[in-house]
């Protein structure tokens, strides 16, 4: 998290605000509720209280305007700049402006007013931008559901105002995982049109042969319709589809798009009802089979016929000597299977039927 220079903050914990005008995109009551909920996000974790004024000068004056709107800090039409706010202080200090040329909504169909308001009011209280992509104070817009503050945001605002003396139980989002954390484990690994996608918590890293640095992004900012937590994933390149597994459901993605008819239950693949989760999955290009790992066992699914091969489940330990532990994620490259378990990855050779190399899980992330 960052603060503004000189740690600008309100000296009084009772802060006033006033909504000067409204966007026609939403009902007046929706705008009032979005602003109030956005203020509550910050009052939940600090001693701050917010009092609404209906006339006169408030600490935080909230308004909608387009292009040049009176502060010589013009907006730019649709997209691009969505809103801005000024740090605590007299006059324009604390004032918060929304770009009326954006389409403001209550859901994820366009720019969500509550999410943008919560971010801008963070500025109005003294927070500057955070470099944590999972933080509310990260400068780039992304739609998320649930409680918007991450631990990073809470630490930042409490460094200015202290904690809420009567805290209400809130569940902050964990910070973005650090790719070079030596104890890092993966949730799932898959290929996607020549790139490697690695899922961890609410995020995924994207590895591209010509991109030296993995790129970390929120899952929901690319695929809003899949869950925040992925158990397993694999790509069927012939169909140009990536299968995502979470709990007892599975999603089929074609690039950014969800294939019609999904999500479906994983039991449609032929798994017994007692299976409630898939740990890892991998498509073996040479055989056209997809291996699905659950606890100590694994299944083989024939992509061409769309059926589960008979004689499964089989024991992972028996068929993959050297792999006597559960598997978090799996991938396959040129005759080698890569099993990821906690902070280690095991390179297994199909031809010599043994583990031939053990590395750190995040060595794939240039760590």
């Amino acid at each position, binding site marked *: 998290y960052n603060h503004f220079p000189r740690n600008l903050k309100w000296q009084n914990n009772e802060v006033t605000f006033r909504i000067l005008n409204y966007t026609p995109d939403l009902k007046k009551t929706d705008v009032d509720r979005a602003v109030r909920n956005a203020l509550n996000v910050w009052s939940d974790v600090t001693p701050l209280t917010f009092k609404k004024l209906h006339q006169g000068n408030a600490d935080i004056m909230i308004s909608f305007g387009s292009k040049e709107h009176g502060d010589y800090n013009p907006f730019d039409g649709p997209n691009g700049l969505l809103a801005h706010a000024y740090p605590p202080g007299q006059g324009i200090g604390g004032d918060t402006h929304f770009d009326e040329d954006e389409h403001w909504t209550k859901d994820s169909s366009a720019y969500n007013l509550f999410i*943008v308001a919560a971010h801008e009011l963070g500025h109005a209280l003294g927070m500057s*931008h955070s470099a944590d992509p999972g933080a509310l104070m990260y400068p780039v817009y992304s739609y998320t559901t649930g409680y918007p503050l991450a631990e990073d945001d809470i630490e930042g605002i409490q460094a200015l105002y202290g904690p809420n003396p009567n805290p209400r139980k809130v569940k902050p989002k964990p910070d973005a995982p650090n790719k070079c954390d030596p104890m890092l484990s993966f949730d799932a690994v898959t290929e996607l049109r020549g790139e490697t996608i690695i899922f961890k918590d609410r995020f995924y890293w994207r590895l591209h042969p010509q991109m030296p*640095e993995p790129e970390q992004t929120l899952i929901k900012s690319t695929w809003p319709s899949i869950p925040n937590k992925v158990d397993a994933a694999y790509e069927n390149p012939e169909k140009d589809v990536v299968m995502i597994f979470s709990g007892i459901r599975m999603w089929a993605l074609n690039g950014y798009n969800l294939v019609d008819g999904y999500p479906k239950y994983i039991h449609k693949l032929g798994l017994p009802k007692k299976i409630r989760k898939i740990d890892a999955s991998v498509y073996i290009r040479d055989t056209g089979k997809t291996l699905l790992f659950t606890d100590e066992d694994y299944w083989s699914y024939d992509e061409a016929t769309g059926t589960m091969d008979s004689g499964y489940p089989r024991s992972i330990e028996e068929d993959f000597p050297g792999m006597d532990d559960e598997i978090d994620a799996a991938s396959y490259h040129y005759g080698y299977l890569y099993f990821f378990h906690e902070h280690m990855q095991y390179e297994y050779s199909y031809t010599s039927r043994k583990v031939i190399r053990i590395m750190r899980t995040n060595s794939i992330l240039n760590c």
Partner: protein
Amino acid sequence: VPLPSEDKDDLLLAEKYLRRFYGLPAGLQGRQRSSVAFQSKIKEMQKFFKLKVTGNLDDNTLDLMKQARCGVPDIGE
């Protein structure tokens, strides 16, 4: 060699972005000095967003500059 028009658009977008969010000085300061300032501001932005710090206007950096965002600068006053 003249830049193809698309590159020129990207360059203008990048200059505007860095001027607004990273304090790139406005106006003409002589070719050499402005390109040094330009590169150092790109590095600052790449560092902030945890991109590979190259000082070059690569695809990743440009992609990020085109995303919808808050109008408050990322650094400084």
